[in-house]
């Protein structure tokens, strides 16, 4: 089925489809059907992107967004990971936290934005807290189910071989739960990434990729918007592929918890 010729044809078609999509955009943009301010041609978007990179503003916006995401995410991991593990190990903690988690989880993080704005004012704090809220639950639930999914046989085997509580925790439970924990961090990042864009638009301070998109709307700078959107997509893609991929290789795969597909 998947011979070299087949694969070549696939990538040829993929390239062709991207080219056609770009060509259609270009033709529509230049045909004057829509105002040029609303639908800028591709070279203009590319030029804006490069200009923003060169004058450093794109990097500064990216830096602020990354700072908020990583700060909020780190906070969520620091809180949710121990709590989730505890929920998986101690019955009473599970009974207390699980109803709360399942009640708060369906509330989208963005619903809290106006309230947090009132409480903490516009700016960084709101964005970080929204990211924290968004990232908290995937992390918590995955840590919890990861610990519960550890094979009881392994626990007994380790116990029979004389492992004390601490060894059991670090050598059996944590590696055993690691696929879930990594998945949790991954999902948490995705949620956080969505939340930060929304939080930056609503709780506008004056930097950040979300803010720059929203601000560009006022001046009909569609090229700036699209350039920032491209940057957001690029960072999301890089994180997903590079960061999480290598983390997974370094931990879970080395411990033999999951195998590479095929």
């Amino acid at each position, binding site marked *: 089925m998947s011979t070299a010729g087949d694969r070549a044809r696939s990538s040829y078609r993929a390239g062709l489809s*991207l080219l056609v999509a770009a060509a259609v955009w270009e033709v529509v943009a230049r045909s004057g059907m829509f105002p040029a301010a609303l639908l800028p041609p591709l070279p203009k978007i590319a030029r804006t992107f490069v200009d923003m990179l060169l004058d450093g503003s794109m990097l500064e916006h990216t830096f602020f967004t990354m700072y908020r995401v990583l700060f909020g995410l780190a906070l969520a991991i620091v809180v949710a990971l121990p709590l989730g593990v505890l929920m998986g190990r101690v019955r009473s903690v599970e009974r207390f936290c699980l109803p709360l988690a399942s009640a708060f989880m369906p509330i989208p993080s963005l619903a809290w934005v*106006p*309230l947090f704005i009132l409480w903490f004012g516009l700016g960084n704090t709101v964005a970080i807290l929204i990211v924290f809220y968004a990232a908290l639950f995937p992390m918590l639930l995955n840590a919890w189910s990861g610990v519960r999914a550890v094979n009881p046989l392994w626990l007994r085997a380790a116990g029979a071989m004389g492992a004390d509580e601490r060894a059991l925790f670090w050598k059996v439970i944590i590696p055993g739960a690691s696929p879930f924990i990594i998945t949790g961090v991954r999902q948490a990042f995705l949620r956080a990434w969505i939340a930060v864009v929304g939080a930056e638009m609503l709780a506008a301070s004056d930097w950040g990729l979300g803010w720059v998109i929203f601000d560009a709307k006022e001046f009909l700078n569609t090229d700036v918007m699209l350039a920032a959107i491209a940057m*957001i*997509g690029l960072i999301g893609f890089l994180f997903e592929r590079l960061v999480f991929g290598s983390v997974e290789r370094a931990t879970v795969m080395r411990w033999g918890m999951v195998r590479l597909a095929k």
Partner: protein
Amino acid sequence: MLDSAPAGSPDLGIATTSRPREERWRTLARTAFPFLVLALIWECTAHLGIFPPKLFPPLEAVASAFAHLTSTGILPHHVLDTVVRLLAGFALAAFAGVGIGFAMGRSRRAEDILLPLVSIGAPIPGLAYAPLFLLWFGLGNTSAVLLVAFVSAFPIIFNTWTGVKAVKEIWVRAAQAMGADSGRLLQHVILPGALPYMLTGLRLGLAQAWRILVGVEMLAAVPWGLGWMIFGAREFLDTDVMLSGIATIGVIGVLLEKLVFARIEQYTVMRWGMLS
């Protein structure tokens, strides 16, 4: 020594012990307890007056705001508009997503052509497009519904595509050998086979739509809708209105998950024996 919770703890499922009623009460009390503790902490903080009561209202104020909003019909109107918007966007996404996913799963050519476009769009958070949609389609309903549809289409496309590809080749061959034409093949083999994945996709899509909708309503300045109600209340420091809105959003979220999807799954997937 190890008081780990055994997997599938019985009190989460249906209690079928000798005294089911007592068991049910106990489960209820156990579930309510954390909320009572939380409410108590909130009440104490609110009444101590550390924060201005306008910003940190006691629960009775929130409850009376909730009752007032409900009895005057304002809250139901907001809820109705939000739900209609959610369903409209989701229905659009479901049609488009299932269609595109099926095409990508069945035809190699469609897959080659669409996959790069879909994979470029997917990693960008939908809200990033919000201002662009507002410019293109104007403030209001059109933008909100289209954005929600756009965002929730991606998980549906990906899962339908995976599901169609995951249908066992041998089932397709067997059906063809028994003389099924492509219509019957689709209806009796591929659709049921892909259904578990499709339902996962629809579920993820709806969850995605729900998460984004509140934010979209705040940005798109729609006249009615829970997101807008919360956002608008900020201007007048109506923290009690905000909190009632957030609580309503939470209730709708739980209902969506519990009522809509648990039901659908029971009726279809389990009946066809695709999931145990």
